[in-house]
């Protein structure tokens, strides 16, 4: 380096760093799009702020087949993604998707990294203490997936001494500790690792919501199967910042709207419907009183 002024070089480098982000970053969507029939909201509300920004920031899973999965093309697809799209439509904005792995979801909402989380996110009392939920918009239950050639595990009662895999910060990971106290638990950041570990016989079973398991089985129908009945009820909700009652009401109203006009059912058929024949009816929205 022959530069005579190192400090200037340093400043220049910093500018390069800034420029690199400015031209990169997430895909910029023009906010003018869809402005024709934008509903209007009270000034200062979250809805108005999102309209101002032109995008709805959505945290979702990128590794859950049928719910939120990033394909080779780079697009995210699935039921959660469709629900978020419908909500964005109602706001007259476009959604942008960022990955929210299970253990990140609460800090993600609290820090305001995202406006909503639609990520196979079970509504439960512990989470209600730190975030608010709209919905539920789907109800499933916890179940088990095992290797196809494994006949030793037929349900949660056969798990004593078996290695069971799940995902950090998820409700099934918590519940399996009480449902199968003698099971040995392994926790990863994504279900893909669990599936690979089970193929390798490093773990014997994967437990989480049946809906997610069916998605994983659809990838490798010759290697995996879902066994036993579901042993919990997992209502999926839309997570939002605690205390934002107006936004929560808006989300609940929107869900009821898409239940009625058939858009919810259409979204479910196009995603989960690919591997599941008898699809459920939309669940009733629970407008619980936030503590």
């Amino acid at each position, binding site marked *: 380096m022959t530069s005579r002024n190192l400090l200037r070089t340093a400043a220049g480098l910093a500018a390069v760093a800034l420029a690199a982000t400015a031209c990169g970053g997430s895909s910029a969507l023009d906010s003018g799009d869809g402005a024709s029939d934008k509903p209007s909201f009270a000034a200062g509300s979250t809805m108005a702020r999102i309209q101002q920004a032109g995008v709805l920031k959505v945290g979702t899973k990128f590794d859950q087949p049928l719910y939120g999965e990033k394909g080779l093309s780079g697009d995210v697809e699935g039921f959660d993604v469709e629900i978020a799209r419908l909500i964005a439509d109602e706001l007259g904005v476009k959604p942008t998707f960022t990955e929210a792995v299970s*253990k990140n979801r609460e*800090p993600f909402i609290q820090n305001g990294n995202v406006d909503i989380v639609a990520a196979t996110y079970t509504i439960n009392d512990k989470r209600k203490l730190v975030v608010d939920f709209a919905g539920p918009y789907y109800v499933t239950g916890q179940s088990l997936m095992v290797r196809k050639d494994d006949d030793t595990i037929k349900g949660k009662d056969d798990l004593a001494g078996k290695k069971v895999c799940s995902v*950090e910060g998820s409700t099934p990971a918590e519940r399996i500790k009480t449902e199968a106290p003698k099971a040995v638990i*392994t926790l*990863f950041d994504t279900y893909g*690792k669990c599936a690979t*570990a089970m193929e*390798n*016989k*490093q773990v014997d079973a994967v437990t989480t919501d049946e809906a997610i398991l069916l998605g994983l089985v659809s990838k490798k129908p010759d290697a995996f199967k879902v066994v036993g009945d579901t042993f919990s009820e997992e209502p999926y909700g839309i997570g939002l910042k605690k205390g934002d009652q107006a936004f929560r009401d808006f989300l609940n109203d929107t869900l009821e709207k898409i239940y009625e006009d058939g858009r919810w059912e259409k979204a479910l058929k196009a995603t989960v419907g690919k591997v599941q024949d008898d699809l459920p009816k939309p669940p009733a929205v629970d407008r619980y009183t936030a503590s």
Partner: protein
Amino acid sequence: MQLSTITDNLDLYLEGFVGTLQLTALGALGSLVLGTVLATMRVSPVPTLRAGATVYVETLRNCPLPVLAVLLAFGLPKLGEPIRSFSFFTWAVLALALYHAAFVCEALRSGVNAVAPGQGEAARSIGLTFPQTMTLVVLPQAFRTVVPPLGNILIALTKNSAVAATIDVTDITNQTEFVINDTIDPLAALAGAAFFYLLLTLPTGLLVGRLERRTAFSR
């Protein structure tokens, strides 16, 4: 940010601290053994062994540790028993040992090279054989120069053991992620983690610094 975030979860942190300590100790032992073998191969007169060790060093030190960890943990079990039944803790130790062995090898090699050729020549001129030259003259001097670099590798290994958190092995970082998720008080949780890491890295750093100054003077 509350101090109680740390004090309430002290048991979690201590568990993680022990995990990090175990990973570091076993990883250091493994990398020292393997690194010595590799260094011997690299300074040996046997071309195939030299080439093998060179390929190993160049591959491993250019491969990010998290990539190595997942490749080992999810890839090698495909080789079948008994490898398949290794625990994830074992995989984490192996990843740390294999990765740092490349650096240990290079430190040892440059240590041997740093001993002036005249030393070897002098040894031979008084009639010492090659093994005698190595064990009595070259290696004792080489050892002296490699202690500080090895110390620095140990510090790096302590910090790098955090990679274990990515394959479900209990260490400080992994426990911290649970504390963050549980308390939603990331600042305090991370400060707690930093404290436990500093407890390990700072004393080692001071010791290495002293050794460095001492060997620098004695040469």
